[in-house]
């Protein structure tokens, strides 16, 4: 617990940081000030006010994402806003908040001229009460028999569907839709609530499931399971009946922080890709004890305490791995000892060495090992998480590789590690695609390819030996979620790095002369899945390439050329004689800076409305259209099959 002097000191530091526009220091001190649990409401308001004063510095210096946010609501949210502002900044978002009217949420969502529609926000939070979503449920469920309960749920979901679909048809903002909280006490009592099929508790769980399923069908929309959050923090104290009845305040003031934190965590996957790799230490992290001292029989793992604490962690890692998070060992140990331990203690371990994409077991600096891993896997350091019990190792990574997220394993309380890990949002994803699930095999195949590259003679021969097949398909069927995910997370080979929303991709696919193409790649080692995307539009004689990107896993195999060639053929079919490419330099996309020049384009003048950073290139399609490399086999190229879905002739 902080004493008052520490509090005042931290507040003074924050004030000074704000005065000197030092966003980093302001956030650092605020984090400490608010670490006291529960934090004082006045401190939260103080921080919110401080952050509002340095919004520019937060965006410019800390690269916080600034989101124009509109809150559609039927309840009082104003006292919660400072908590939302503060939690958002601690997760590196700056929310510019606008709050809609109490009773006007229907009009806001349906009317194309509403304040919401006109403000064109990046994000809409839809926070309604049960009364507004399914107000008749409490009465219909009162006898637990529930005539009409199903019908009421059906109608409620249909009504929400109409609101969301209507809004989506005219607006590309990301949407967070909040579910309902199961009331803590009802006239039926706990036993009947649990046992009767149509109790209110059961009905609301069912309603929430249906609403979540609805949200899955709306692009760029997440369901916010506020009931789960309420259960975690304790239903009894989640709501303050006094303040709800007097002021329509949906959560008690003691829960404001938890509520705001939950909201921010739920909206985050709409804007940020999850991290991809977890690097774990071994001694006193993956298992108890030090292998080098205690030998394979001496380390703690297995079904008995305390070994089961480590087994829990191993199982948790395996679960992460099954949805595509890559696991790696980064340990200072003797490689042979570790292999022996995994063999001798196989029955007591929840993981085998096969579950890891790579192992870095040596006496090298761990920062060096992680850097090597990043290079081998072609992933940015900001995709990495590092877990280690040694505070010195943790601090070294924090200082040398600040992009890596570091989690200190609690060496004296190993049962806490899983909770600590799951409390972090860095692996949060609203969608998991088949490509995610297959990632481990894909990355392992990459290592095998690297081996073959060393043995094959020349490049063309090597590439031909991979037997690469490219399949072109509409971005809408890639599946669609994967296409949008690619736009959101591809950095290195991304010519314009435009993070389009799903709605914007749909626009390219459906507009006259537009094309939205995805490319799927497989070779003799495995299926890499959908790895590339291109968006373009022909107007008059010119086809302009808005976006062209390729996952860094498959760069250098001619797939980018095949994608450009395919796009060029489509452009010709839509009547284009000129192909215009655009390159917007970023910190990360230098590898594709010369892409257009390498493909015979020449630099072209920028259009008047172009951004000053853009560099334009053009190619006369009547002289030479780009061609696909010989070593690639192409599929899905038949124009008839293709043009129906993704190319609309102008």
């Amino acid at each position, binding site marked *: 617990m902080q004493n008052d002097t520490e509090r005042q000191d931290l507040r003074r530091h924050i004030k000074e940081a704000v005065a000197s526009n030092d966003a980093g220091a302001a956030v650092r001190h605020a984090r400490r000030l608010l670490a006291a649990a529960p934090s*004082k409401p*006045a401190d939260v308001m103080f921080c919110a006010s401080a952050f509002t004063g340095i919004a520019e510095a937060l965006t410019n210096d800390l690269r916080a994402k600034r989101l124009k946010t509109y809150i559609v609501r039927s309840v009082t949210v104003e*006292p919660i806003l400072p908590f939302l502002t503060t939690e958002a900044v601690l997760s590196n978002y700056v929310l510019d908040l606008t709050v809609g009217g109490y009773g006007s949420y229907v009009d806001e969502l349906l009317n194309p001229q509403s304040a919401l529609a006109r403000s064109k926000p990046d994000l809409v939070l839809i926070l309604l009460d049960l009364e507004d979503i399914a107000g008749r449920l409490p009465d219909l469920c009162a006898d637990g028999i529930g005539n009409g309960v199903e019908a009421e749920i059906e109608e409620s979901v249909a009504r929400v569907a109409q609101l969301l679909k209507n809004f989506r048809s005219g607006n590309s903002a990301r949407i967070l839709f909040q579910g309902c909280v199961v009331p803590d006490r009802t006239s039926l009592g706990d036993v009947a609530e649990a046992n009767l099929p149509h109790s209110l508790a059961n009905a609301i769980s069912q309603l929430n499931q249906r609403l979540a399923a609805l949200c899955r069908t709306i692009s760029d929309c997440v369901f916010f399971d506020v009931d789960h959050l309420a259960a975690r923090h304790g239903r009894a104290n989640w709501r303050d009946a006094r*303040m709800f009845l007097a*002021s329509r305040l949906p959560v008690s003031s003691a829960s404001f922080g938890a509520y705001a934190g939950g909201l921010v965590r739920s909206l985050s996957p709409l804007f940020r890709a999850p991290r991809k790799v977890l690097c774990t230490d071994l001694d006193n992290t993956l298992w108890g004890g030090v292998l080098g001292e205690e030998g394979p029989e001496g380390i703690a793992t297995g079904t008995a305490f305390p070994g089961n604490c480590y087994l829990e962690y191993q199982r948790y890692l395996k679960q992460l791995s099954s949805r595509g998070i890559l696991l790696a060992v980064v340990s200072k140990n003797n490689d042979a000892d570790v292999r022996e331990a995994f063999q001798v203690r196989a029955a007591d371990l929840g993981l085998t060495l096969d579950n890891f994409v790579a192992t870095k077991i040596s006496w090298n600096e761990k920062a060096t090992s992680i850097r090597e891993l990043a290079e081998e896997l072609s992933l940015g350091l900001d995709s990495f998480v590092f877990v280690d019990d040694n505070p010195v190792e943790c601090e070294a990574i924090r200082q040398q590789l600040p992009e890596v997220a570091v989690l200190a394993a609690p060496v004296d309380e190993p049962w806490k590690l899983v909770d600590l890990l799951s409390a972090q949002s860095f692996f949060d994803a609203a969608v998991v695609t088949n490509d995610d699930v297959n990632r481990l095999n894909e990355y392992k195949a990459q290592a095998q390819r690297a081996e073959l590259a060393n043995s094959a003679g020349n490049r063309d021969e090597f590439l031909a030996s991979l037997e690469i097949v490219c399949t072109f398909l509409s971005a809408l069927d890639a599946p669609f979620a994967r296409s949008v995910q690619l736009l959101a997370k591809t950095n290195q080979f991304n010519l314009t790095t435009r993070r389009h929303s799903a709605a914007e991709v749909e626009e390219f696919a459906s507009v006259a002369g537009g094309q939205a193409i995805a490319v799927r790649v497989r070779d003799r080692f495995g299926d890499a899945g959908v790895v590339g995307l291109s968006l373009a539009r022909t107007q008059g004689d010119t086809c302009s390439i808005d976006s062209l990107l390729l996952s860094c896993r498959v760069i250098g195999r001619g797939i980018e050329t095949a994608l450009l060639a395919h796009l060029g053929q489509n452009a010709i079919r839509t009547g284009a004689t000129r192909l215009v490419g655009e390159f917007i330099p970023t910190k990360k996309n230098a590898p594709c800076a010369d892409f257009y020049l390498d493909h015979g384009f020449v630099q072209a003048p920028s259009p008047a409305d172009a951004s000053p950073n853009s560099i334009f290139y053009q190619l006369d399609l009547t002289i030479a259209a780009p061609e696909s490399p010989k070593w690639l086999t192409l599929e899905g190229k038949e124009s008839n099959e293709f043009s129906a879905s993704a190319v609309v002739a102008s």
Partner: protein
Amino acid sequence: MSSQQVPSSLRDILADVLEISPEEVTPELGVGTIDTWDSFRHLQAILAIEGEYNVQLDPSRIPELTTVSLIQAELIAKGATL
């Protein structure tokens, strides 16, 4: 009257909520006497004060507690240690 007459803990909370300096929190300060003290800030202030002193105020009294001195008197009546 000066801010010295307001207990420092109460003064600091109100200063944070109303985004003013503690010296500006005088017993006469109230809803409508400064721009930032509107009905939503009022609710915010009351909730923050309830949390700080661990008291619950009667919702029908909340709209009547329109000045610092009225809030202070209500807290004392509720047995809060200021």
